[in-house]
């Protein structure tokens, strides 16, 4: 038994995908747009961005929460919770799962969210300053904090089991997935909704996120987010939610579920964000725990944050882990098409990995045209056909925590 492995060896599989993404609502529209090479990064339309240094984002458009979320919950909650509730609904549908057939105390939620509810936050501030502190809306206290999606999803579906929400900058969603995986491994739950939600595309949200120092200030939507490119200038914020249904293998088999893949390992390591060491360590740990040789990996979904040091050190880490023993597997950063989703990222790239396994296509890295010499890796630029059996998903926070995941196609081909 590997160190860190649960003594009962509970195996964790993915049985459902729900996506509310700038590229599309739902699994097929999203995947169709992504593999057609479409890009959702565009000039901001939702609000007047005049005077802000950042003028582009990946917005979720054509989303009507009421199509998927009860109206009584919409009024009380912020857009990021609408995204989460809608993605949860799609995930339940995709997994062909209903709460009525489950023990509610064995179903949990493990979400990432980095930044809370900006729409309602702005509304609250406006009420506070324009009308007076005693007339602030009654929903704000429960709508803007980062655990609101967990709360609303638990109430909507009657989910009673061990549930947690995480903030860790760009790795927020990755922490959600890691601990969602653990909550099954450790025996707290049989079923977990994992992933996360984000909706920072508001004027106040953009004005604040500029201070990460990682947002691209490039006004050209086609040139703003270029992971690993010589001309990269940072990332572009997106919004949306991805919710995946994780189940113990036993539970999934017991109900005859369609299984996308097995999550073999999720590991976390922390260190200097400008150096490759901690990411290398997280990757090696995930490969070791999952019994994966570097040459068994068919594609790596990179963090690709688009900053000079971030992409350089990620490329270094990938070369160290994969480059010495065999040619580095293809690397891709599909978020170049839908923006960085922070709390909703990682689950989104894992979903891409699962769909790549099913469809035999690796999505590309939109935008990037000339890979920087210090970022030399086999980056997939256009959607490419490939046999995908085993994927690695990478995440890294601005402060230097790294999460690496290994998933294998089901039934396991290796």
């Amino acid at each position, binding site marked *: 038994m590997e160190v860190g492995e649960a003594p009962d060896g509970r195996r964790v599989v993915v049985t459902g995908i729900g996506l509310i993404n700038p590229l599309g609502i739902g699994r097929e529209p999203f995947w169709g747009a992504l593999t057609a090479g479409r890009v959702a990064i565009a000039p901001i339309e939702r609000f007047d961005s005049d005077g802000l240094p950042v003028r582009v984002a990946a917005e979720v458009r054509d989303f009507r929460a009421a199509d998927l979320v009860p109206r009584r919950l919409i009024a009380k909650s912020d857009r990021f919770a609408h995204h989460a509730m809608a993605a949860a609904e799609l995930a339940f549908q995709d997994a062909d799962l209903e709460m009525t057939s489950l023990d509610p105390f064995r179903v949990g939620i493990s979400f990432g969210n980095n930044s809370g509810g900006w729409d309602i936050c702005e509304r609250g501030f*406006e009420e506070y300053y324009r009308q007076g502190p005693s007339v602030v809306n009654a929903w704000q206290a429960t709508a803007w904090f980062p655990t609101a999606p*967990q709360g609303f999803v638990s109430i909507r579906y009657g989910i009673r089991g061990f549930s947690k929400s995480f903030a860790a900058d760009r790795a927020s969603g990755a922490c959600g997935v890691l601990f969602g995986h*653990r909550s099954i491994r450790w025996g707290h739950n049989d079923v977990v909704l994992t992933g996360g939600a984000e909706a920072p595309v508001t004027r106040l949200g953009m004005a604040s996120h500029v201070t990460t120092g990682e947002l691209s200030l490039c006004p050209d939507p086609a040139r703003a987010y270029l992971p690993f490119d010589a001309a990269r200038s940072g990332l572009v914020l997106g919004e949306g939610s991805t919710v995946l249904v994780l189940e113990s293998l036993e539970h999934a088999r017991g109900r005859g579920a369609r299984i996308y893949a097995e999550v073999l390992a999720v590991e976390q390591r922390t260190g200097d964000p400008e150096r490759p060491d901690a990411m290398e360590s997280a990757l090696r740990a995930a490969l070791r725990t999952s019994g994966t040789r570097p040459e068994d990996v068919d594609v790596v979904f990179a963090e690709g944050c688009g900053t000079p040091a971030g992409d350089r050190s990620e490329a270094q880490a990938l070369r160290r882990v994969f480059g010495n023993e065999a040619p580095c597997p293809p690397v891709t950063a599909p978020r170049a098409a839908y923006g960085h989703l922070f709390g909703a990222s990682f689950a989104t790239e894992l979903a891409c990995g699962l769909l790549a396994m099913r469809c035999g296509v690796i999505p590309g890295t939109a935008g990037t045209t000339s890979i920087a010499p210090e970022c030399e890796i086999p980056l997939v630029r256009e959607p490419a056909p490939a046999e995908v059996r085993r994927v690695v998903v990478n995440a890294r926070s601005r402060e230097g925590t790294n999460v690496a995941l290994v998933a294998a196609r089901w039934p396991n081909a290796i």
Partner: protein
Amino acid sequence: MRRVVVTGVGIVVPSGIGAEQFWRNNTAGISYTRDEPSMVAMGLKSHVVARVDGFRVEDHLPADAVEEVSGLSRFVQFGVTAGTQAIEDAGLLGSDFDRERAGIICSSAIGGTPEFQDAYEMLSESGRVPVRALPEHSRFYDSVFLNFAPAWLARRYGLEGHCTSLTTGCTAGIDSLGLGFDLVRSGELDVAVTAAAEAPLSGIAYATLDVIGSLSRTDCPPERASRPFDARRGGFVLGEGSATLVLEELDAARRRGARVYGEVLACGSLNNAHHMTDLAADGASMAAVVSRCLREGGVGPDAIDYINAHGSSTPQNDIFETRAFKTVFGERARAIPISSTKSMIGHSLSSASLVAVVATLGAMRTGVVPPTINYEFPDPDCDLDYVPNRSRQWPVRTALVTASGFGGIHSCTVLGTVD
């Protein structure tokens, strides 16, 4: 499963900075809730808070650390201060722990909300113009968002495993303990630093909590506004603070001769899936999490000899908890002393539940259980032993700590002494 013990404690609360001072004032039953004139000026119904008076980060950290965190928000400064205390208290620095098997789980409900409000006020000219962007070099993100303190502690002390923040509101502190417990128990980590930091005192926090009737509206002197289990309780008093616990595997702690404050025997957390803030009067949701936690930890209900309750002083919560304890412990519920630390220092959201754990470790060490102060008028629906007003000599070997929070989350932990 491996056994998990607490080997380091750090705390910053209105009643003390450092565990010894906190334990002394906490058992002395001193109130730290005070009048907050700005709340009256805002036209709110509540006008009391509990503040950490005279906190200066430079009094607690070395100069190089002060330089890195000066100008950052109050909750970050609380977090790095309590974290530093705990890590130093545990003597981790002199030990040869495996860095990749050491991690940190921090927590906060609303992060740098006061500093966020200050920025909004400035950038929007108090709501008069569309917000301008902050300068890119501003440290707003580090200051207001949630993950700076754990990342800073990880870097400074070489914690190279997990590093993240929980955001599960008022249970987040005890939830961080729960995750740290699982990480060490399962063998994934050898050392888990678990923490909570909260400094919410600001106009927007007062306004949003006051409008939903959460804050204390009791007509009484401000020192008496937090009155858990008392018939005249009328909401919680917003407080601030931070706590950190260092968790280690028992044998490893013993091998390096670490001081052991107590053992974490079990942790549990469930959702009521009922309402974001309301609690069903029957207490069944809390009873469920406590029962399951005891069962999973192999601890019989009869072993519990002290409860540090959420005891928030809201009309709903205190009945809810009382009924839950009766459900779990039956007639024996009357024989278990129960206290609420919030009676003295208010409710510091995420931090409150981890502060409650520190208070309980103090009771186990000293054999004195802290009181619930401001208990004057018995509530027929809250008829257990709340250790009214005065601390009590009472040996504590196995204790329960409970917490409830926005989002409908209920969490608890069971702590034990180690011989």
